[in-house]
């Protein structure tokens, strides 16, 4: 349904995206993660036609969204701040989107606003930051577009509202809506996504959510005999997550070509206990050494 090919973008002379490519099938949910300033918002803005790529293209249903903006009738972008809606009431915004998006559902919008406890006749400018995000998400999902791009939808909202927004997203995904969600809520993304896109050094790595770390990294709790091998622990194939007394929690490179696992075995440690690898662990493994892009 959505394809990006060889996308590249430079901003102020610095490369932000380089040869980015990915695909998203209909009805699937992808989580976009990366460090602050890595280019997540830039990528989402390119995918929604706000920014033009320097090279490459974004295809929605095999139509270029930059050359044929009409293709975006089934694609909605929800930014992290809905400043553009200041001056509108909920009803006003719904009226406008109702004219643009052919499958806009005003009943769903009204129900969702009521569910969030948001007034429909109040100016969005007077909403709190969290209320604005909830409004924005409700409006975007009400388009019933086939693909919704969300830039940090839980940004600035309280834990209860966060749960409500995530529930809403999961319901939309269950209804067959495709979502691309940029977020730092790794635990939630792990639960609700089918794929994880890691944005790193201007490129996107795609992983299936269920087995994001498979064949890449394993997480172990280790107790060494005698002193811990400092050189080995500082090597590129090992990352120490935690260290309490003699117990080390480690991430170990298990990709082909790495000898870290064999080296550990040869040390004959007192305890080696595998732990489940979470998305957060993969995030730390992949991006832990990166500096902020900005």
């Amino acid at each position, binding site marked *: 349904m959505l394809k990006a090919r060889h996308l590249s973008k430079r901003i102020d002379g610095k490369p932000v995206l380089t040869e980015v490519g990915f695909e998203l099938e209909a009805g699937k949910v992808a989580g976009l993660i990366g460090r602050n300033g890595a280019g997540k918002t830039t990528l989402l803005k390119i995918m929604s036609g706000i*920014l033009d790529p320097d090279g490459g293209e974004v295809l929605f249903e095999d139509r270029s969204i930059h050359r044929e*903006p009409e293709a975006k009738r089934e694609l909605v972008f929800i930014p992290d*701040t809905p400043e553009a809606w200041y001056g509108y009431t909920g009803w006003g915004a719904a009226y406008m989107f109702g004219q643009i998006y052919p499958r806009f559902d005003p009943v769903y919008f009204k129900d969702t606003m009521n569910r969030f406890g948001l007034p429909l006749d109040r100016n969005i400018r007077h909403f709190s930051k969290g209320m604005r995000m909830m409004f924005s998400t409700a409006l975007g999902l009400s388009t019933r577009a086939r693909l919704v791009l969300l830039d940090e939808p839980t940004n600035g909202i309280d834990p209860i509202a966060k749960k409500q927004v995530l529930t809403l997203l999961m319901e939309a995904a269950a209804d067959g809506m495709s979502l691309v969600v940029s977020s730092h809520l790794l635990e939630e993304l792990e639960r609700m996504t089918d794929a994880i896109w890691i944005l790193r050094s201007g490129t996107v790595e795609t992983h299936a959510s269920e087995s994001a770390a498979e064949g890449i990294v394993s997480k172990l709790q280790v107790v060494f005999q005698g002193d811990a091998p400092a050189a080995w622990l500082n090597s590129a194939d090992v990352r120490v997550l935690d260290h309490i007394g003699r117990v080390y929690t480690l991430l170990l490179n298990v990709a082909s070509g790495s000898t870290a696992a064999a080296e550990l075995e040869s040390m004959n440690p007192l305890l080696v206990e595998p732990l489940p690898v979470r998305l957060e662990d993969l995030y730390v493994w992949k991006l832990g050494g990166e500096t902020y892009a900005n």
Partner: protein
Amino acid sequence: MRTKSLWYGMRPLLGREYAQARLFIFAVPIVHFLTLGLPRMNEWLWSEQSAGMIGRFQRNASAHGDLYRYVYDNGNHEVAGRLWLLLAAFVLALVQIGVERRNGSQELLFSLPYSRGRIFAAKWLLGASLFGGSLLLNTLIDAVVMAASPASHYFRADYFAVQFGYSLLVVLAGYSCALFIGTVTGSVASQTILTWVLAALPIVFVELLDASLQAHGIYMSRQGGYDSYSPMLWGDRIRIWLNFFGYASAQYLAITWVKAIFLIGLTIVSAGLGLLAYSRNPTENNGKLMVFKRGETVLRYGFVICASMVAGMLGTELFRLSAGDQFGYDIGFVLGCALSALGIRNLLRMRFKY
């Protein structure tokens, strides 16, 4: 069928533009009335001097133009109306382009399933309809006032038709230029400054060039001003052709087809360039002085040339050397060139919040 679908495609965009400029939709015709219809009412319906003015016209009118001088005040009310509409056009363009960059509306619009060309067309159409509507309404009011006044005998329908058409051309040209400048500048501040600078630039540039050439003994304008009997030189003609405010403040008898054609050309060129620039707008450069690299280059060289010439003129005054004006000018020019190049380099790197 195609027209219908085009209209339905435009409707949400026009609605958005209307919501954004709602205040203007009501304020523009009202203030326009205050500059055109109301003074005319004052002059002909409520003033005790109106009968005297008719008498004066009947006694003194000898030439064709006297009718417009005595009865229509040379069209000065229309000139005031045009200048007000030009000011409104500048502010509307600022709201539609510059403010939109700042508040995220541009990003919302660009994410919608519309081409940027269509978005720009909706903006232009809203402004053109607003100014066209205001001009039509107020010209009709003006005509009705004249038809009902003691001077109704001198009512001339062609006067109102010409004033309406010419004023529309002036305002559309100014509005299109203001929109175009908005599409190439990256912030409210730079759009504001550049709009006014560019409106005055042709005249200021000619003056600077004139002074610079004079410092080197070359004359492009007649000496002694307009009162002298010397013939006009090419510099004098350029001053007349390029003075947009001269077009805007043209009294009735000074309105010509040549001016109208120039304004039509200016509207077409600036609207076309605006459409092109808006379609290729690099939103990542919002906040900068200029959004396009080429625009930066033009601004850089333009700024350096103008600032250097200003510095050259100052140099002529400050360094009155025995070697003549030329050396003072050249010293100032070189200093101005270096300082302005440094200044504009830093300015072009900055991002402005507003």
